[in-house]
């Protein structure tokens, strides 16, 4: 509509060129990343080797392609967004926080009459009760810029039963050796600092959106492996239930911790577990799976980006 703008100087205004285009956009195998700021790191520099987790998730499709499927789930948590991000690599909480859910699953399953097949839900929830040693040996990898992942050697996703017909399709697409290598990767959670997490073996992406200092919206995206059996999507969706009792445990902890932060009794949150003085600056290292190095690493990245323009 031009009428009403004549001789107003509109052509010289900031509004004349319409919405500001996003100048830095990158489509990485179907995932579109945008950077609004002209400064800062470029795509390769920012993500570096961490893109291997996206690669592994996508390679799990015999067609090398993912499709958004199953609906996008959103849920609201009354806690600070950083708690959600730190939790992704916190391997010391499951056996305690999830005793009520995973522990009950283990107990109820013990008493269940012998049947031929373990239900998918039991297979998914029970490993949360694995002992500390399991999580220690699972390992954590640290990359640049706050990124990293749990599950270097194995993970709670390692022992899912085979899905009929899937491996044959993978073998036909990639050859046996490569197919085994793709599926042998059992990365648990890959954190992309500041606020994305993906689960390759589950085909899931969670986006943590800060709404307020004590409010976080979580968006959970699920993907179908193109050309793979539906049963894999079914498992993905079962893992992703928001009303999951495992989720109830976590949310209770976040909200209690958030309340605790309002107290001045101790204003520090300790992240010293398995600290080593030479860790700053190290990248692409695999460490003990119960280390809080990833969280320290996230704060080092935070400091780096917050002071970049200074």
């Amino acid at each position, binding site marked *: 509509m031009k009428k009403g703008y004549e001789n107003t100087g509109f052509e010289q205004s900031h509004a004349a060129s319409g919405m500001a285009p996003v100048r830095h956009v990158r489509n990485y195998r179907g995932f579109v990343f945008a950077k609004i700021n002209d400064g800062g790191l470029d795509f390769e520099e920012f993500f570096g080797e961490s893109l291997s987790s996206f690669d592994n998730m996508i390679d799990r499709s015999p067609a090398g392609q993912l499709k958004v499927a199953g609906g996008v789930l959103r849920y*609201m948590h009354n806690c600070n967004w950083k708690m959600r991000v730190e939790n992704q690599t916190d391997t010391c909480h499951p056996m305690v926080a999830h005793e009520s859910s995973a522990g009950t699953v283990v107990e109820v399953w013990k008493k*269940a009459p012998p049947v031929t097949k373990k239900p998918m839900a039991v297979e998914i929830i029970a490993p949360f009760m694995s002992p500390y040693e399991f999580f220690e040996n699972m390992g954590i990898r640290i990359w640049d810029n706050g990124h990293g992942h749990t599950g270097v050697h194995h993970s709670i996703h390692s022992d899912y039963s085979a899905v009929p017909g899937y491996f044959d399709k993978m073998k036909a697409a990639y050859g046996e050796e490569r197919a085994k290598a793709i599926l042998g990767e059992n990365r648990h959670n890959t954190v992309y600092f500041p606020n994305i997490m993906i689960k390759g073996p589950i085909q899931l992406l969670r986006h943590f959106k800060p709404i307020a200092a004590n409010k976080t919206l979580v968006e959970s995206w699920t993907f179908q492996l193109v050309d793979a059996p539906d049963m894999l999507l079914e498992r993905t969706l079962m893992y992703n239930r928001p009303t999951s009792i495992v989720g109830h445990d976590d949310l*209770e902890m976040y909200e209690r911790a958030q309340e605790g932060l309002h107290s001045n009794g101790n204003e520090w949150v300790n992240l010293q577990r398995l600290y080593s003085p030479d860790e700053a600056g190290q990248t692409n290292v695999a460490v003990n799976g119960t280390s809080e190095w990833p969280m320290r690493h996230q704060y080092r990245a935070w400091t780096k980006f917050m002071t970049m323009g200074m």
Partner: protein
Amino acid sequence: MSMVAEAQLKNAVPTDQEMIDFMVREARLIDQQRFDEWLDLYADDAFYWTPLEWDQTDPRLTCSLMYEDKLLLSIRVERLKGARTFSQKPTSRCHHVLQTPQVDSRNPAANNYVTWTPMHHIETRMDEQTLYAAWATHHLSVENGRLKIKLRRVDLINCDAAFGNIQLFM
């Protein structure tokens, strides 16, 4: 707390009133947290389903807020009683307001009856109280002279909203 026991069906084919009484009783068992008795209303192959999407047709390949068989429901009930269930310290309470259930279909030959119950479910814990408005669709059948739930579908009016914990049953 007053306990109202379940009445046996008078005949092989349930009357509308018997199905209405059954719905009212189910809500009462949940409100009074008599979860073992509540679970007993469900057939062994039953499912409890809360869709995520409006008019959702597929519980398997579309995400749901809840889609659980009897094993998972029994785990949920056990968990509520657990000594280390921190999200239930203190416990939640809930309250149902039902409209009179309507019998949508009755098919005695197939032993299948469907009812429709608009309801409000209020769940509270500490200072928080949340109101959920929903329609419950029950698929029922008769087993050994008792009504049993084969499928309970709860469609929330705001099924696609971002919720926090919903810990009890709607």
